[in-house]
C-alpha cells in the first residue's frame, strides 16, 4: 500500500492556501471549471458513486447513495449542508482543513450543491470555531469575486448562495437531523427517521448533509474520476482518511493516510511511538465514543465497516500505563452527561448515573450495588435510546469493564 498518497493535505505545507491565488496555482477550482464546462450533473454523480466514497463524519454511509437520493427527488427546492460542527473530543481534523485549505472545502460544497440542484448551501460550523468562521468568510468572499458562486457561476446558468451558520455549543448538533432542527431555530434534538433528510430535511425539503472531510475529497474525484479514487486505500473503504493522533505519542497531530492502514502503523511508524519512558496500555479509536484497543489487537485495520470497532471521526487516543483510568472514565462519562440532549429517558438518566458511578470510582467508594448497576445502565444505553448517542456513551465504559477490568 502506498502510504504517501495525499488527497486533502497534499499542499498544506507548501503554500498559504487561504489565498485563492495560491489554491488556484495548485489546480484549485479546476474541478469546478470542468463541471461547468460539461454541465452534466448525472455524470459527476456517477463518478462520486463509483468512487465508493464513504461519509467521513463517523457513520461511513456511502456519499453517492445519499447524493443520488436528493438529486433524484421530485421536489424542486433542495438544500446542501456542510457539516462542520466538529465536536467529538480529541478531533480537530475539520478545523485543520479550514485552517489549511478552506477553498478545497468550498469548491467541494459548490460542486455537490450544483450536482443535487441546490440553490442554497449552508456551512454549519461549531460555535467555538470563531477563527475558522473568519477564514471561511474571507475565502467565500474571494471565491464570490471570482464568480465561483453567486449568480451565474462562471457565466453559466447555475446559481448558488452559500451561508455560514454558526452553532451554539451542542455536540448532538453534529447528528444531521439535530443539525437541521438547530438551523430552523429549534432545540438541537434528533428527529425520528425516516423520513431521512434526503427526503424531508431543512424546511421539509430534500437536503444533503455531508461532513467537511467528505466534501474535501470531491474536487479530486471530479478531476481524476471515481474509479481512480476507488483504487486508493482498502477495497471496502477506499480513499484516504484524516486521523487525529493524540495522547502519549511522540508526534501528535493530523495525518492523512489511506484507509486500511493498521493501528500499529499509525501509532508506531507515523506517530513515532510512545513518548520517552512511557509504556503502551491501550488506544481509543474514534473519540470519546470509541472502543478501546489493546496491544494484541493493534494490527487491526483502520477502515469503515470493521466489525470490532468503528473508526468514527478518526481520532486516536494513545493511553500509556501511567494514566489514571478513573480520570479518563470521568472525562468520558462527564462528556456524555453534559451532551445528552435530554429527549429520551434512558440516555438522559443513563449518562447521568454512569457519571455518578465514575465519580465514586475515582473517590474509591464504589459499592457492589454500583457494580451491578453498571451492567444494567450499559445494557439500557446500548439497546433502548432514541439515537445512537446512547451506544456511544456506553462503548468505552463497557470496554473499560471488560478489557481493563476496572470493577474487579
Amino acid at each position, binding site marked *: 500500500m502506498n502510504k504517501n498518497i495525499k488527497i486533502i493535505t497534499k499542499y498544506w505545507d507548501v503554500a498559504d492556501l487561504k489565498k485563492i491565488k495560491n489554491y488556484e496555482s495548485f489546480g484549485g477550482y479546476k474541478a469546478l471549471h470542468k463541471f461547468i464546462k460539461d454541465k452534466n450533473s448525472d455524470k459527476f454523480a456517477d463518478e462520486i458513486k463509483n468512487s465508493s466514497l464513504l461519509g467521513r463524519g463517523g457513520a461511513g454511509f456511502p456519499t453517492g447513495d445519499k447524493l443520488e437520493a436528493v438529486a433524484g427527488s421530485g421536489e424542486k427546492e433542495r438544500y446542501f449542508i456542510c457539516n462542520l460542527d*466538529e*465536536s*467529538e*473530543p*480529541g*478531533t*480537530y481534523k475539520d*478545523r485543520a482543513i479550514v485552517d489549511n485549505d478552506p477553498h478545497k472545502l468550498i469548491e467541494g460544497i459548490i460542486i455537490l450543491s450544483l450536482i443535487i440542484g441546490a440553490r442554497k448551501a449552508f456551512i454549519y460550523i*461549531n*460555535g*467555538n*470555531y470563531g477563527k475558522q468562521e473568519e477564514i471561511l468568510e474571507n475565502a467565500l468572499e474571494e471565491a464570490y469575486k471570482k464568480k465561483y458562486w453567486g449568480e451565474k457561476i462562471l457565466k453559466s446558468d447555475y446559481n448558488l448562495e452559500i451561508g455560514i*451558520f*454558526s*452553532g*451554539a*455549543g*451542542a*455536540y448532538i448538533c453534529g447528528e444531521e437531523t439535530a443539525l437541521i432542527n*438547530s*438551523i*430552523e*431555530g*429549534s*432545540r*438541537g*434534538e434528533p428527529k425520528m427517521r425516516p423520513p431521512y433528510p434526503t427526503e424531508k430535511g431543512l424546511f421539509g425539503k430534500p437536503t444533503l448533509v455531508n461532513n467537511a472531510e467528505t466534501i474535501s475529497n470531491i474536487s479530486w474525484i471530479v478531476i481524476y474520476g471515481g474509479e481512480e479514487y476507488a483504487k486508493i486505500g482498502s477495497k471496502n473503504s477506499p480513499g484516504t482518511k484524516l486521523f*487525529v493522533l*493524540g*495522547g*502519549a505519542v511522540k508526534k*501528535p*497531530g493530523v495525518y492523512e493516510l489511506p484507509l486500511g492502514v493498521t493501528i500499529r502503523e499509525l501509532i508506531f511508524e507515523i506517530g513515532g511511538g510512545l513518548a520517552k519512558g512511557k509504556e503502551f496500555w491501550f488506544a*481509543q479509536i474514534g473519540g*470519546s465514543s470509541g472502543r478501546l484497543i489493546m496491544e494484541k489487537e493493534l494490527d487491526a485495520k483502520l477502515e469503515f465497516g470493521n466489525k470490532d470497532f468503528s473508526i468514527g471521526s478518526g481520532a486516536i*487516543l494513545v*493511553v500509556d500505563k501511567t*494514566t*489514571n483510568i478513573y*480520570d*479518563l472514565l*470521568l*472525562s*468520558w462519562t*462527564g*462528556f456524555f452527561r*453534559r*451532551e445528552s*440532549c435530554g429527549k429520551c429517558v434512558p440516555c438522559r438518566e443513563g449518562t447521568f448515573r454512569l457519571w455518578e458511578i465514575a465519580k465514586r470510582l*475515582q473517590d474509591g467508594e464504589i459499592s457492589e450495588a454500583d457494580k451491578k448497576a453498571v451492567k444494567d445502565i450499559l445494557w439500557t444505553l446500548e439497546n433502548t435510546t432514541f439515537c445512537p448517542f446512547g451506544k456511544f456513551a456506553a462503548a468505552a465504559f463497557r470496554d473499560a469493564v471488560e478489557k481493563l477490568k476496572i470493577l474487579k
Partner: protein
Amino acid sequence: MSKTIEKILLEFDPENISLLPALKKISAAFGHISEKDMQKVADYFEVPLSKAYETASFYDQVQIKKQPNLVIKVCSGANCAMNNSFAVIREIENYFKIKAGDEFNAKVKLEIISCLGQCGEGPIMVINNKVYNNVTQSSVHGILEKWL
C-alpha cells in the same frame, strides 16, 4: 440597554432561521438574556415566549441566567484529562471553596467543559472567554490571581 437589544434584533430577519443567531448575539452582548429581553425576542420573531426559551435553554452559548463576574471553564476531554486537568479542577475548587458545576457562589463559577479542539495544548482553561493553554496544578494560581 433596551435600545441596544432592539438594534441587535434589527440586524436579523424575523425568520426562524435567525432565531438562534440572534439569541447568541444578545447573550454575548449582555452576558445573558433576561426575561424582559426574551419577551422582546419572542415578539420580534413572532413566536411564543416558551418557544424562545425552549430554543435558548438548549445551547451552551446562550445564557438565560445572570452569570457571575468570573466564569472559569476547564476542559476535561480525554487529551486534557491525560494531562491532569482534573488536578487543575480540584485546585480551583479548593482555591475558591466551590464545586465544579455549582451555582451557589454569585461571584465565581467553575464549569467542566468538553473539547474545544485544542487538544495538543491541554489542559485548556477558559476564563471569561480568554483561553489558557498547558495549565498545571501550580501555574493555575498565578492565572487566577490576575483575575481577582
